[in-house]
């Protein structure tokens, strides 16, 4: 933790044109919505967004797509966002589709210092095109490259002021993994507790990984 909790607009100010953003969430569940709103309001463009999906138009990550701020999305799914499909087909937005399990492991590899991911998922499909195949003990694996972000923008149920994070139910999804894999991690907790009252065993992301917290909603 670098300083006091930030207002959403202060956090959005940290993000430059063309940044690579890892954004938590699964169809908007567990996405940092106030942070996304502030980035959309500020209107900084040319972003690369790495996320599970592009959500829906007018919701979550879909707002960044609607506003034309996303130059490239690395995601597993855009099926529920016709605006993302339209922009892809029109050549206004580049889309890299990655199998969901491969996507989360590529981010983890980027976060924990591994050189890549060896997965059978995608072998014999379009996903394998242009990728190195490594045979290990008679089975083929794709060598998938690590992913890191300039920023990770994550949602959390609860934090303390050293940045320790807890998550809840299906709002975990990509958040704990993304917290490992960016130069700057900004977390949007629903609650912030005093230091020392969260049990060490309840912490899923240690505060040493988190650079900034967003203020609680007023």
């Amino acid at each position: 933790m670098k300083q006091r909790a930030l207002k959403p607009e202060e956090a959005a100010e940290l993000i430059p044109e063309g940044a690579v953003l890892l954004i938590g969430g699964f169809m908007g569940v567990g996405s940092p919505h106030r942070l996304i709103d502030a980035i959309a309001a500020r209107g900084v463009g040319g972003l690369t967004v790495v996320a599970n999906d592009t959500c829906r138009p007018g919701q979550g990550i879909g707002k960044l797509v609607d506003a034309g701020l996303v130059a490239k999305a690395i995601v597993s799914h855009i099926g529920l966002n016709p605006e993302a499909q339209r922009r892809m087909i029109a050549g206004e937005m580049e889309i890299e589709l990655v199998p969901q399990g491969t996507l989360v492991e590529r981010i983890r590899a980027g976060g924990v210092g591994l050189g890549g991911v060896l997965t059978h998922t995608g072998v014999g499909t379009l996903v394998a095109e242009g990728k190195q195949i490594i045979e290990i003990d008679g089975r083929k694996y794709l060598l998938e490259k690590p992913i890191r972000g300039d920023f990770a923008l994550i949602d959390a149920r609860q934090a303390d002021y050293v940045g320790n994070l807890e998550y809840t139910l299906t709002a975990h999804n990509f958040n704990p993994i993304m917290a490992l894999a960016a130069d700057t991690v900004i977390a949007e907790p629903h609650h912030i507790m005093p230091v020392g009252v969260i049990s060490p065993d309840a912490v899923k992301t240690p505060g040493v990984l988190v650079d900034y917290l967003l203020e609680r909603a007023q």
Partner: protein
Amino acid sequence: MDVKEIIARRVAQEVREGMLVNLGIGLPSMVASFVPDDMHVFFQAENGVIGLGSRPPEGMEDRDLTDAGGGFVTAVPGAASIDSAMSFGLIRGGHLDMTVLGGLQVDEKGYLANWMVPGKMVPGMGGAMDLVTGAKRVIVAMVHTQKGKSKIVPECTLPLTADRRVSLIVTEMAVIEPTDDGLVLRERGPGVSVEDVQGATEAALVVHGEVPEMALG
């Protein structure tokens, strides 16, 4: 009985005591309602919960507890929250006993295509490639034909989801098991003859003796 209900009821019969099961969105998600509670099955939603329960009563929805389709769900007693790395670790690591997915095409090798139609629909593969690669049993639940055209074909013309043979195909007309010898017709749909199934199927079917009708109870 509705076509989808026939399929969902028949797929439910594949579920065994104590299994961990992933149901895709749409038709596959209907399977849960036909699995008896006393089988102690845990349903996984790949977005992060093991022990998915039915839709909550109105007014008791929680925005942080949804299935992979974004619908509100509940958690059964003994449920566990998992992140995406654990979720797909379970899937790819062979810990998932069964997955039920929709299909666009299945071919005579048992290969499935269910994630894109080139030049048309490119929603993304989501978790499908990992599910088909990693689950112990892969069950394709789909209607037999699409606009009069067979979805069970000699060779998939659409891009494959994985290089793995699926375990079973369940449609309203047939239960078909891909094997080394080809697509074996195991059961006929209600009121459907073997000839009806063959007539509606572009792929070659292997028929061993008498083919029973689905027993849907």
